[in-house]
């Protein structure tokens, strides 16, 4: 590692899971060393963060002292050893550009919120749209339904792809979804068709959000639901039906986009601060930024 390299870690504290990514910024390039996502599942978020960071560092053979910057995003303000905090859309935009250099938009679909972000080639956020204070159509919503159907997260996508006659459903409540699903099952509708119907209605929302944000070319799906191939297919179908040239992609590290983006911005700031001669005591920067 050259002495000009900067190591930075990004921590994305979400409502369902915590994502951590470790990057090396060589000035010429950024390299993702290692990243992980872990569900919080009723544990203290700070404990999960601490253990994830330790795991990552040890996997990379590093210690905290090697880090030039600890950047948080999402609800990351609860992390007391951070160097600085970046807002979610700023980081997702950066992470998305890193994962897919052709993407000019991304849509972050997490457990509770969805946000569509339009950005330029420097990852500057040009426009965005977010969902409101209702969790219908969110990751949590899909999770509730699939649990009732006896389908695990990993199976959702593949099963949905088998649908032949999707049962369209209007936007339904994330909590009441179970009852609606009970009702559909009782009407003899297959699991695949139920899931696909739900994927389509979710896809409709996301596409709308993306279009409203101004996306036109390539969009990278970030956040947990990027792993759902059924949802990806539904988004593509929705776009194809509307003859929309927007291209939807996902990436195996999509879920880490926020964490990666935070880490990259962290390294960027670390360099800048260094130039300005500011020393980076943990927690100091968050004050300096305001």
């Amino acid at each position, binding site marked *: 590692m050259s002495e000009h390299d900067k190591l930075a870690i990004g921590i994305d504290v979400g409502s369902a899971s915590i994502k951590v990514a470790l990057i090396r910024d060589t000035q010429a390039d950024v390299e993702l060393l290692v990243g992980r996502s872990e569900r919080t599942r009723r544990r203290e978020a700070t404990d999960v963060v601490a253990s994830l960071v330790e795991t990552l560092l040890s996997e990379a053979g590093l210690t905290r002292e090697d880090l030039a910057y600890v950047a948080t995003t999402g609800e990351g303000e609860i992390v007391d050893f951070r160097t600085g905090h970046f807002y979610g859309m700023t980081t997702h935009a950066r992470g998305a550009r890193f994962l897919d250099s052709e993407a000019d938009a991304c849509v972050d679909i997490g457990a509770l919120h969805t946000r569509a972000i339009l950005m330029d080639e420097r990852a500057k956020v040009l426009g965005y749209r977010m969902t409101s204070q209702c969790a219908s159509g969110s990751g949590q919503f899909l999770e509730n339904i699939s649990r009732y159907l006896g389908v695990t997260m990993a199976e959702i996508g593949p099963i949905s792809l088998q649908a032949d006659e999707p049962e369209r459903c*209007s*936007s339904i409540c994330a909590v009441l979804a179970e009852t609606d699903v009970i009702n559909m099952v009782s009407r003899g509708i297959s699991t695949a068709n139920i899931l696909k119907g739900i994927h389509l209605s979710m896809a409709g929302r996301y596409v*709308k959000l993306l*279009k409203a944000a101004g996306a036109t070319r390539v969009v990278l799906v970030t956040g947990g639901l990027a792993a759902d191939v059924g949802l990806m297919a539904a988004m593509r179908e929705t776009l194809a039906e509307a003859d929309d040239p927007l291209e939807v992609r996902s990436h195996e590290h999509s879920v880490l986009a926020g964490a990666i983006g935070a880490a990259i911005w962290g390294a960027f700031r670390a360099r800048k601060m260094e130039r300005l001669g500011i020393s980076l005591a943990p927690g100091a920067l968050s004050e300096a930024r305001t």
Partner: protein
Amino acid sequence: MSTTEDPRAVAKDASQERQKRMIADHFSRLARSEERGEKCVYTFVPGNLTELLLAFDVAPVLPEINALQSGMRGLSKDYIALAEKEGHSEDVCTYVKCDIGMLRSGNIGPTGERLPDPDLLLLSYTGCFTFLKWFELLKQEYDCPVTMLHVPYQADGRITDEMRKYVVDQLRDKIIPALEQMTGKAYDEDRLRELLARSARAEDDLVAVLESAKHKPSPIDAYFGGVYYIGPIFTAFRGTQEAVDYYRVLREEVEERIRLGKGPIIPSGELEQEKYRLVVEGPPNWTNFRQFWEMFTDEGAVVVASTYTKVGGVYDDGFRHDPERPLESLAEYCLGCYTNLNLPSRVEKLANYVRDYEADGFLINSVKSCNSFSAGQLMMLREVETRTGVPGGFIESDLVDPRYFSAANIKNRLESYFQMIEQKRARGVTR
């Protein structure tokens, strides 16, 4: 209000065929207006100034009607989506969004032909604030003059001399000059008088038709069916001979039904047995119009009076267009339309309907779009209930946004509501 096209077969009688033809003709006339050198004006239904426009040989285009037609033909969903994509909020009136979406999609009218661009935007601001915004939005789209008639609200439950004067002054000093300038014709008051005289004739017949519902069984449905009846008079025909003829035929038909003791025509034919007589407040839903209607007819429910059939103007208290007082009576017409009445007057009107039409129930369809109608309906519900003692019902839907029409939910409420009336009646509680 009126439809030229319903995808499914619907039972009709002669007047309905006639009405359908009239509306279709109107739209094709509009489509050809540019080539024929005819001028057109965009304006609104409540308190519309049709006679004045016809006196200048100008055809009205009514965006609300276009929106409801789009709703009935299943196009509104995409139109609304388009408008929302352009940054219109989910929260606002869906008529506006439907109209904007239609405009963006080529402004194709209900007959499949393109509607003409306006030569004048005549904003009659009566009973609804959204109208102001709607035409501000349209003004961004069209390079044409716009003129506005501000109709004051009947806040204290009556029309004062100052209100009338305010409207007449605007008509005389703003609207008429704008029309003169657009058409190059001079204002001809005698011609207006002739038109108004014909209006009054048609209005007499319309009132007779709507009041026929006082009979048992009612020969008409005054809400779903009523929508068809008010079509010609509130859109482009008031003041024409066609309208006079249509309303005469309609009245004869209805009188014949009374003689035969028949119930109303419904989508599937005729209603066999009148089980519940209802008064309904609020506009209907257009995207699922037939399905909605059938939720009533399936249970034998007939609407005997509705406020929606008074959106264009209210004739209940004896108002008729008056050739003797042309501008004044136009002003009174505008001032008197239903959503321009204050809430106490609306409550009183509904309570009167319940009594006069011997209704078993009083139902509100609250539409998400329309604050003008909806804000305050829950209080109206309670007031009417207390004053009349008949049970009130409350359902929620929207005008043209199918996302807000939850069939299961509405059916559930209606079902409970009808069973409740039934049960009361079984115990001799209601009449």
